[in-house]
Structures are given as C-alpha cells and as structure tokens.
C-alpha cells in the first residue's frame, strides 16, 4: 500500500489565498485589555494561579493545567490582572477568563538557560511542551504533550508535519514556511527526537512550490526528513486524509493516528514546540490571517494570544465594505461569529470577513440524488442519505451507513446543487451518537 499523495473525493473551491499571500507577517502590539479564556483547548479548563490586582510579566504563567489532558496559559503582555470573570468567546458563550490590563512595557520573565536538544531526555522534551501550554493550533486544540505520549512510542514510524493548509483564504502556514522555515524544521526535529523509529514527512500541497523548494533545500542534509508535495485539494490537511496521502495508511474514526504509527502536527504547533523545547518559551503568539473581501488590507499578523478581534480588524485597515458574515477560521470548517468583541485564542487561525454570505443567498431545495456529495466526500460515505437519517433521528441507520466516518469537512454542502445543509445535519447527528457512546 503506497502513498498516493492524494485521497479519493475532495473539492477545489476558489482559494482566495492571493488576497494575503504576498504580504509579510506583521507583528502587532495589543492596545486594549487582553482576555485569556481558561478553556482554549480540549480537556479540563485551566485553573488561575493569579488573582485580581496581581502584577504579571510577559511569559508568566497565569493559569495552570487541571490534569493531564489540559494546558496552562501564560500572560502575553506585562500588566495587572484586572478581573477573573465571564467573558464572551468566539463560539458565543460566556466562559471564565483572566483579564489583564496591558501596561505597555512588555517586561518579560527570564526564561532561564536551555540545554541543547541533544542533551535533553525524552521525558524532559515532553515536559517542556506540556509546561509551555502547547496545543494543536490547527483548530482542534488538543494538548500536544498528550499526542506526544503514545502508549507505544517505538511503534511510531512517521511524524507528519501538516503543512498542507488546504482551507481556502488561509495563508498563515504559507507565510510561516517562507519566512521561518527553519523553525518549522527544528520543531519537527524536536518531535523526531522522541521517536527513534520515526521518519519525518513534511506534507505540503503542491500549490506552494516555493515552500516545497525551500523546505527541500533546508532538509537536504537531514536523513530523517523528507518533503512531500501532495495534490492540491481540499481537505488535504484533514488528519486522516493527510496520513493516507502521505503514508498510504487509512485510519477510521475509532482510531488515533498513533494506531497507524503516525503523529501529526501542524506548522504553528511545530513552531510552538520548537520555542518551548529550545528556548523555554511558552505559547504566547500565533499567526492569524485576517482576510476576506470586506477587509481593506488583508494580511497575516503575529498576534499575542488574548488580543481583541477588533484590534486585528483595525490593523488590517478596517472594513472597506460592511461584512455580511465573519468566520473564525477558514470558510470550510470555521464557524461564523456575531460579535467581534472576543479575544484571540490558541486555536484562532483566521478571521475571514465576507461581504456576501453564499449560504443564505440560495434556498434549500429537494435532493435530486445527483451524487455530487458522494463523489466529493473524503469520508467515502453517502452524505445525502446520512442527512436524511439525521433529519429523521435514525441513529441506527446513520451508523450502519458509516456516518461516523464523516470528518465534518463541509465538501458535501459545498457541492450540493440543491444547497442542502448536509454537513450541519450530519455533524449534529455525529455529536448525538458520540454522546450516546460516552454514556454507555
């Protein structure tokens, strides 16, 4: 079973990357208060270790992990803890958050001496990643140290750097690979240091030939790392599809990548791992693409976590036209937000502002059984029927027709000529089934 560099299904939407891809990443400093929701990851919310009135420094821990599957949170500016209270976050809920008033001095803590990678033990490397609060920054927010601690580390054969960036409009990974390719590679080397039997694969979509070239050049003396150009197609960066395209191994929804001997980390996560391991620096920044046809000057920013979304929009020149829809993340898997007064979190990859909402433009019609959703589905299921089962609440048939293999990528809704909300229906059904399984 060889790696084909692609998978069956998928779509080629308008990619919108030209809006922002040629502009360098810009550093921005926050002006207003910074807000740190305690739950920016999958797992137990972090527990505050500061109280109202405390003075904190940049890089100081303000909340600690509450268990193994959890992650600590660090201040990204120096200033005073103004409050610990409920604040609205991107998904619309009000959750507990630490609010810090920026004193504008950016005084940093001393990160201490750092041993070179070669002298660190495996436990120390994982510990550093854990302490730094690194989580999967592609959107899921799963604590990275958990991923890096599989049951049988010797069985890990591939560490895959997810450099696909298949979501339309997003260019943050692209800019990162152009501007700081060595950091990505060094991050991958940190992970490879944990798994003696593993090879590193940097999987890039072939619409980024410049990145492929740079990475190949920089890794030509790295026997353990290969750069693989994958076919450009959404969702090439979806974990299961990526593993399949890069290694030829297919895992189902009940398996973890580690079950197929794989560990997958995305570009931003690898950079965060790198600074955690080699510089003792906690996760404080991320790259956010602010883009869309409503934005005056679309581009990428290096953002301090906690920064308000309004500030990002202002930095991008504000709106040149009123947006009809604002999406947190990419257009395929991101979610629409109705309030910009929310903070940047560890998992915020993009802010997409569209002048036209293509979803509400057209009415939903009856399914004409055209099969477009079937051809496009990377989960290799029958979305039209799954949505019918979901509408009827028929969990049994839904599972029999392999509804759980859906990766919620959105391809089916995208292609449907009848404009059915397939993904939405299938997603909520999957949630219900998963909840049922947990109860048992």
């Amino acid at each position, binding site marked *: 079973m060889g790696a084909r560099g692609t*998978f*069956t299904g998928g779509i080629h*939407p308008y990619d919108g990357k030209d809006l922002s891809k040629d502009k360098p990443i810009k550093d921005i400093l926050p002006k207003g208060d910074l807000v740190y929701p305690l739950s920016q990851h999958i797992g137990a919310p972090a527990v505050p270790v500061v109280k109202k009135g405390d003075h904190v420094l940049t890089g100081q821990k303000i909340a600690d992990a509450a268990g193994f599957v959890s992650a600590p949170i660090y201040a990204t500016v120096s200033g005073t803890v103004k409050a610990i209270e409920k604040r609205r976050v991107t998904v619309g809920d009000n959750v507990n958050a630490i609010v810090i008033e920026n004193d504008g001095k950016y005084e940093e803590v001393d990160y201490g001496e750092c041993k070179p990678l070669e002298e660190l033990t495996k436990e120390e490397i994982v510990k550093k990643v854990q302490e730094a609060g690194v989580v999967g920054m592609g959107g899921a927010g799963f604590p990275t140290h958990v991923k890096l601690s599989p049951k049988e580390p010797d069985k890990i054969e591939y560490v895959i750097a997810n450099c696909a960036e298949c979501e339309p409009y997003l260019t943050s990974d692209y800019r990162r690979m152009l501007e700081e390719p060595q950091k990505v590679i060094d991050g991958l080397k940190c992970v490879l240091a944990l798994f003696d039997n593993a090879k590193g694969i940097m999987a890039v979509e072939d619409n980024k030939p410049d990145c492929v070239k740079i990475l190949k050049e920089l890794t030509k003396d790295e026997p353990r790392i290969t750069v693989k150009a994958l076919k450009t197609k959404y969702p090439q960066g979806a974990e*299961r*599809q990526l593993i*399949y395209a890069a290694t030829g191994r*297919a*895992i*189902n*929804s009940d*398996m973890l990548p580690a079950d197929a001997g794989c560990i997958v980390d995305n570009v931003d996560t690898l950079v965060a791992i790198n600074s955690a391991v080699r510089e003792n620096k906690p996760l404080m920044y991320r790259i956010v693409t602010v883009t869309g046809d409503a934005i005056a000057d679309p581009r990428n920013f290096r953002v301090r976590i906690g920064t308000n979304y309004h500030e990002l929009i202002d930095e991008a020149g504000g709106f040149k036209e009123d*947006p*009809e*829809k*604002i999406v947190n993340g990419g257009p*395929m*898997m*991101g*979610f*629409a*937000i*109705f*309030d*910009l007064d929310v903070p940047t979190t560890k998992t915020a990859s993009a802010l*997409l502002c569209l002048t036209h*909402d*293509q*979803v*509400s*433009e*057209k009415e939903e*019609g*009856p*399914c*004409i*059984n055209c*099969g*477009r959703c*079937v051809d496009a589905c990377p*989960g*290799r*299921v*029958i979305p039209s*029927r799954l949505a019918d089962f979901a509408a009827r609440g028929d969990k049994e048939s839904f599972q029999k*027709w*392999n509804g759980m*293999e859906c990766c*919620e990528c*959105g*391809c089916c*809704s*995208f*292609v*449907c*000529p*009848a*404009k059915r*909300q397939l993904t*939405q229906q299938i*997603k909520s059904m999957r949630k219900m089934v998963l909840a049922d399984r947990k109860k048992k």
Partner: protein
Amino acid sequence: MSDLMKVSSNPHIRSKAGTSKIMLCVVLALMPAAAFGVYNFGINALLLILITVASCVCSEFLFDMICKKKNSIGDFSAVVTGVLLALNLPPNAPWWIGLVGGAFAIVVVKMLFGGLGQNFMNPALGARCFLLISFTSIMTNFECDAYTGATPLAVLKSGGSVNVFDMVVGRTAGTIGETSMIAIVIGACFLILLGIIDLRIPGSYIVSFIIFICIFGGHGIDFNYVAAHLAGGGLMLGAFFMATDYVTRPITIKGQYLYGVLLGILTGIFRIFGAGAEGVSYAIILGNILVPLIEKVTLPKGFGRGGEKI
C-alpha cells in the same frame, strides 16, 4: 453591526452548481437529438415536443397549485421530462398523446410520489410505458411520410439487413429522438464535459450489452450486427439520458456500475429473447425498481474501513 451579520453552520462557501442550471443543461443537451428529429420527421415532431413539454410544465404548475405546494416549475425538471418523453414518441402520434403522456409523467409518476427527487421511476419512461400499454397501436406505428414503417431493429430481428451508416446518422424510422446516434452522442459529450453525467452507467451499460449480444445474439462477434444494435432503438438515448437520470439511479458509486451492467443484460435479454424488438425502456424501468436493492448491496465502507480507495 452585529445584527447585520449572518451566522450559520460551516461551510460558508457554496459551489455555483444549482438544480435549475443542471436541468437546463440537460434540456440543451437534448436539443441536437430533438432538432434532428424535427429535421428527419417534419413539423408534427416539433408540435409533439412542444405539446408534451407544455403539458408537463402545466401539470406540475396545476398540481402545485391544487395541493397548495410551493411552485416548483422553476427547477426545469418538468421541461426535461417533457423533452425526454417527446423524444420517445412516434413522430406521427396524435397531439393528445403528448398531452396525456406529459400529464401522466408529472402527476402520476412524479408528483404523487412527492415531487422532484422522490419518484422511484423515471417519469418520462413511466409515461412511455403507460402509453405503450394503453395505446399500443399508436405507440408502435412508426409509419410516416419519410419512412415506410419497420424500425431497423424490427428488421434486424426478423432477419433482414439494415444500413448501419443510415442508423448512425439517424435516417431511419423510430421515435422522434432515438434515431440519430450522432446527435445523441453530441449532447451526451456536452453533459460529460460539464460533469453533469459521467460514463459509469452508460459505459458499463453499453459494454455489458455488447458482450451479451456477442454471446447470445447468434451472430458471434459480427461488427455490423453489434453496430446496428447499438445505433438502433432507444439504446443510446436510454443509456446517456435515461439510465443516468439522477433520481432513479443508484447513488452509490459501485451501485452505478452494477446498475449499468444489469441494464445491459436486461436490454440484451428483452431484445434477443423478448417478443418485441425493443427493450431499453423496460430494462430501465425494471432497473429503477431494483435500485434500493442495488444500493443496499453496494453500501460504501467508509474511509479507514476499506472504502478509502473508491
């Protein structure tokens, strides 16, 4: 600002494909065959096409109105049904055949089952078979000014010889739209290029049919005989425009191949062992009925469970 913004579940972008656009393309793709039919058979063919389409569209409009449903003629599926049915009528049929057929196709075969997407049988074919059974002599009389009567397939069946070149071009007796292989294939290519249909069903249908008649036709691998079977009767129109009807074919990919093979075999059986010379319509209708079963045995396995390759 916030009350102006729209929120909905992902994805937030949609392709430009739309139901009515697809249906319009199918109508366009049927135009070469229709135009040739009018050229070949004269003005009565044109009249029949217009009446049948009008009957389909009006029936749908009235049905929606009487049942107080949302008007659905804007999706153009009724037009597709009308054109397809007309192309399956004898060129000299009286005008009321189009009227009755169109109304039957829309009201009985489609709307009573719930409208677009819910019918299990191709409306045009359902209506054709209804007409064949109810008005057999009209529906099987292919005599007209241009041709003396027997269709090439009937001639072939009774052991006569046919001119394959004339059949490919379409200068033979038959229904309005089935005679010209060239015109049909031009329309089909248009749909294939646009990605509206693919070769899964027509390909497996035609290939399995060829194999079947080579084995059971009694002529061995006789090029002329095979070509005459392909160009004659409703095979081309059926394979490219009726077997590929979205609503009434299996949605599973493997199922589509299986369906094509099944139609090929059924058509072969009906043509060679059946009483009549034709078999495409009945084969497809029988295929339609078997679709749920075909889907059941070809359920995809899903990614990571062995289904990732297909």
